């Protein structure tokens, strides 16, 4: 019997194949200690991806697509015998069109690289998130990632105009539409957006661009109660007339934890408020926008929607304020082991959710830390929970507390990170039986041999 690796050697250059122990650790995902995939393949174009999938389909071999491996739910994790298809070498930017305002690029292009290229022609990619230095366009699309600007531009799905994907049998489906309006039949690209590599492998994409904002007005705000927080969001959303670019909320435990664990971090406000908001307005006229922004904050302060506020006076200040929300890896490291969550719910329920979670955590665990923060304007909260160990039993208990409350509130157990392996046991808390059955029907019809990332999202 011919070794499958030998077949792959006839498709791609051998130096782009790594086998067994030779697979670098970064491709092994979170369960790296458990098992190694059979081999890693690094194709350079769609045709190679197609040939690889044909071989895998004929041989019923499991394929795990990988981008930058920054996903947070184990979607790129592998088991022994799996074939990893890394898209990182599909990293060509084919076109940036400033008139149609589109970016056409390979799935392996890293977000930050695309952002920088697009910036050169005074345009902006709508998607932005903390993992910009490693996440790829294909990974962002296949997880339908959210990020910092969803409140203004929507999830990744909203900016994908077209894409090319390879299905399990190796068929290349080119749906590289670059028009905003195209209602000719089914919108097939949607099948591949957010399906976490389980229905096809994305190889190229067309992303809608926006004019680059010329002004960023940023402030850090302290607020004492949740009603004011909601009112402040509604007020600024209206008052900044569509310019609200970010509304990131941090509960006081988060703010205090960053402050005490990160002495070099410059904290803009005293630690006496219940909520902290990083608010940002994106616009086109630096002077007028700043005036509008400060007027809105002044009004909010005078009318007691907010208690305290500091505005960024320079780009350096702006980066320092964002660091409190984004550059907190060190803090999480100190708390580790941690469990992380990404949930969504109606904004009106968030106060109850946070209080109830902390109460239940307090009665279940003697010593626990629960930090809550997130994109409140999008109804999305992140939680970082530490209970002192990372035993499965503890993880299950925390999951049950958090997902139980979410389920009662009719929220979602995954606002933006996807399901992967980590949340699949809880999918039924968010999706009903009919929905899950239809997902499985789609999976069976596009991937009858179940070779594409099986065991992710659902079994």
């Amino acid at each position, binding site marked *: 019997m011919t070794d499958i690796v030998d077949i792959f050697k006839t498709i791609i250059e051998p130096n782009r194949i790594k086998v067994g122990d030779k697979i670098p650790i970064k491709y092994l995902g979170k369960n790296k200690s458990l098992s190694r995939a059979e081999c890693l393949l690094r194709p350079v174009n769609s045709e190679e991806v197609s040939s690889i999938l044909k071989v895998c389909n004929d041989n019923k071999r499991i394929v795990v697509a990988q981008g930058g491996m920054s996903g947070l739910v184990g979607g790129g994790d592998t088991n022994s015998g799996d074939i990893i298809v890394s898209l990182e070498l599909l990293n060509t930017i084919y076109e940036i069109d400033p008139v149609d305002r589109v970016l056409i690029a390979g799935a392996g292009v890293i977000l930050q690289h695309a952002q920088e290229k697009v910036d050169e022609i005074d345009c902006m990619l709508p998607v932005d998130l903390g993992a910009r230095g490693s996440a790829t366009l294909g990974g962002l699309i296949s997880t339908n990632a959210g990020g910092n600007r969803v409140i203004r531009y929507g999830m990744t799905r909203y900016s994908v105009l077209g894409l090319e994907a390879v299905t399990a049998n190796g068929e290349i489906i080119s749906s590289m539409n670059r028009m905003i309006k195209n209602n000719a039949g089914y919108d097939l690209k949607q099948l591949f957006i957010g399906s976490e590599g389980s229905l096809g492998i994305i190889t190229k994409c067309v992303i809608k661009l926006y004019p680059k904002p010329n002004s960023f007005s940023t402030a850090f705000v302290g607020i004492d109660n949740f009603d004011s927080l909601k009112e402040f969001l509604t007020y600024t959303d209206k008052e900044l007339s569509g310019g609200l670019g970010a509304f990131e909320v941090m509960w006081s435990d988060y703010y205090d934890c960053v402050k005490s664990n990160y002495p070099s971090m410059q904290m803009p406000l005293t630690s006496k408020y219940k909520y902290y908001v990083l608010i940002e307005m994106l616009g086109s006229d630096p002077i007028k926008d700043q005036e509008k922004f400060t007027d809105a904050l002044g009004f909010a*302060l*005078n009318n007691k929607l907010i208690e305290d506020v*500091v*505005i960024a006076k320079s780009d350096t200040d702006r980066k320092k304020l964002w660091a409190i929300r984004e550059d907190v890896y060190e803090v999480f490291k100190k708390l580790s082991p941690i469990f992380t969550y990404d949930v969504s719910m109606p904004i009106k329920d968030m106060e109850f959710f946070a209080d109830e979670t902390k109460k239940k955590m307090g009665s279940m665990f003697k010593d626990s830390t629960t930090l809550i923060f997130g994109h409140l304007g999008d109804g999305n909260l992140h939680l970082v929970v530490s209970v002192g160990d990372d035993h499965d039993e503890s993880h299950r208990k925390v999951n049950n507390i958090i997902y139980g409350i979410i389920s009662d509130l009719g929220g979602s157990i995954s606002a933006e990170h996807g399901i992967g392996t980590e949340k699949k046991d809880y999918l039924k808390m968010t999706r009903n039986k009919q929905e899950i059955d239809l997902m499985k029907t789609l999976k069976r019809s596009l991937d009858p041999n179940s070779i594409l990332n099986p065991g992710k999202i659902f079994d």
Partner: protein
Amino acid sequence: MSLEIVKSFLNAVENRDLIQAKKYLSPSSIMIFPGGKFIKDLDSLAEWSKTRYKFVKKTFSTFDEIKEGNKSTIYSIGILDGIMNDGKEIKNVRYIDRFVIENAKIVNMQVWNDLAESILVDKE
């Protein structure tokens, strides 16, 4: 008229006569101080000042006024002297205050100065 309001306001603040100073401020006024810090009223300003310096005195150099309809913008430029809370002397530090006056009340006040820079120089 607007210039008089600003001068009277600055004098009242310097004399710590907050009751008098408040009379020149619109109820919805916005005050932004160095560091991008919003101060919601004069009482908070007094509190905030206490955390920074023991006392500070302004020597006015020039006042520039720009009129636009019923709105007037006034820049007060000068120097600061005083003593920081840690005992350091504040000497000849430049400042600019910008006031927007509408309907005979200050609606917006922004303050810039080189205090942070002068402290940095001291540390070098």
